[in-house]
């Protein structure tokens, strides 16, 4: 009964917010705050009025989203692989983290957007720089969580592996990594949302394609409904990525959720 009510409430909150927003923006008539109906129209015209063969996406949508999402996913995957590899090394090789910790903490404290000029010098302007910003910014949650996760492997699991003489590869692949997987996934999830932010930030400075560039363009041409449409787009993308991630996580970590429920 209570669950049903909360379900209804959750679905109603969206239209209620939209209606209040619409009424307020219409009443104030500020050019900076267009009503959601106009934002939606703009959104539709820019991106969703395409042919069915392109899933209704317009050419402009494909040209804008394609490079952005490509960089986002590539950057996130590179950071994921590097973060897990480095995290395992730091967590399992005795003494390594003591040596490297000050350097890592220093690097971690640097705000990635401020490094854009340095990356410009190091890499070519465009995709390589943007990838570098994303990778540098989102690697930390994966790295830190992986290090924690591989350190926290239950002693009993490792003793079993030792008694039965598992190879080093099997210990890593079948004991340490699966055991650390819940923590690694928590890091990957955080990284994914950070990657979305850094993708936009990296496109705001020195780029000629992508969602960030398109957002900047809308702002510079006083297209405020367009600016808001971009903001909505980013929110929707964040929601979508999170949902997809949770589905993947549910599959990989079903043992974890169930094991905890049964304790």
């Amino acid at each position, binding site marked *: 009964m209570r669950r049903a009510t909360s379900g209804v409430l959750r679905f109603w909150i969206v239209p209620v917010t939209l209606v209040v927003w619409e009424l307020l923006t219409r009443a104030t008539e500020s050019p900076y705050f267009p009503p959601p109906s106009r934002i939606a129209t703009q959104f539709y015209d820019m991106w969703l009025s395409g042919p069915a063969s392109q899933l209704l996406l317009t050419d402009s949508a494909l040209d804008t989203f394609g490079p952005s999402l490509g960089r986002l996913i590539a950057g996130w995957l590179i950071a994921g692989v590097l973060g897990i590899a480095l995290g395992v090394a730091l967590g399992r090789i005795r003494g390594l983290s003591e040596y490297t910790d000050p350097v890592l903490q220093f690097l971690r404290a640097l705000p990635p957007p401020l490094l854009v000029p340095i990356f410009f010098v190091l890499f070519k302007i465009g995709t390589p720089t943007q990838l570098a910003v994303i990778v540098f910014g989102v690697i930390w949650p994966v790295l830190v969580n992986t290090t924690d996760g591989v350190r926290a492997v239950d002693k009993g*699991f490792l003793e*079993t592996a030792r*008694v039965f*003489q*598992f190879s080093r590869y099997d210990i890593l692949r*079948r*004991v340490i990594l699966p*055991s650390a*997987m819940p923590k690694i996934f928590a890091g990957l999830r955080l990284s994914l949302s950070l990657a979305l932010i850094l993708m936009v930030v990296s496109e705001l400075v020195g780029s000629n394609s992508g969602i960030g560039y398109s957002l900047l363009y809308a702002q510079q041409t006083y297209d405020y409904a367009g600016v808001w449409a971009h903001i909505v787009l980013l929110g929707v993308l964040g929601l979508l990525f999170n949902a997809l991630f949770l589905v993947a996580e549910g599959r990989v970590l079903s043992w974890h959720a169930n094991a905890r429920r049964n304790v």
Partner: protein
Amino acid sequence: MLELVDLSHTYGSYRAIDRVNLKVAQGEVVCIVGPSGCGKSTLLRSIAGLIKPTGGTVLLDGKPVDGSPENLAVVFQDYSRSLYPWMSAVANVGLPLRRRGLDKKRRDAAAMAALEQVGLAGAAAKFPWEMSGGMQQRVSIARALAYQPKLLLMDEPFGSVDAQTREELEDLTLRVCAHHGMTILLITHDVDESVYVGDRVVVLSKAPGTVVGDLPVQLPGPRDQIHTRELDAFVRLRAEVGRLVRGMTPHRNTHGFGVETR
């Protein structure tokens, strides 16, 4: 096949076991019993190579043991920390066989056969968290069986299950292990269990643990939870072991049991 010579271990200034000497012959089931804190687990962990004893040697087939020996399996008390929750029962049982150079098909077949022997053929695809404690411990036993070790160590293997399951698992161990002719060293704090399961009961004293009694168990087989436990011989032997565990001087018995004490 297994010989402990003056095996000692100290943690800092705490002496857990002190010059333990023990010889176990091939195919014997030896129960080690002692009061809590007598260094039983330290003893087992030294043999399994999980700790390096500070004194003495462990000889396996005449050769000193360094690290975890080949052909040795352990059934731990805490199955929840020994079975991998991200793997099904059959995968857990088959995992150690990767080292044996068997391909997937033969590993699975061996794992299934072992699960069948412990009565879990129908639960092969289940995950540990889908099973009761008794079932999980059966999987642990199946894993040890599939591995076909020469020496099986069991560390309070039935300490975390209810009384009924405990009896079932005792019988399973007797039946299956006798069938394989494995040498077993079972550690327990339960006097009854040591007499019921063992061919021999070795009693350790309070810490620092040392051997204070080594009694052969001569009970007619096959053993049975009800009949064996009501035999006069069982009752008397249990009393002997109980006295030794409590640190009392043993009765010089007149019933034909060779109680050797040091």
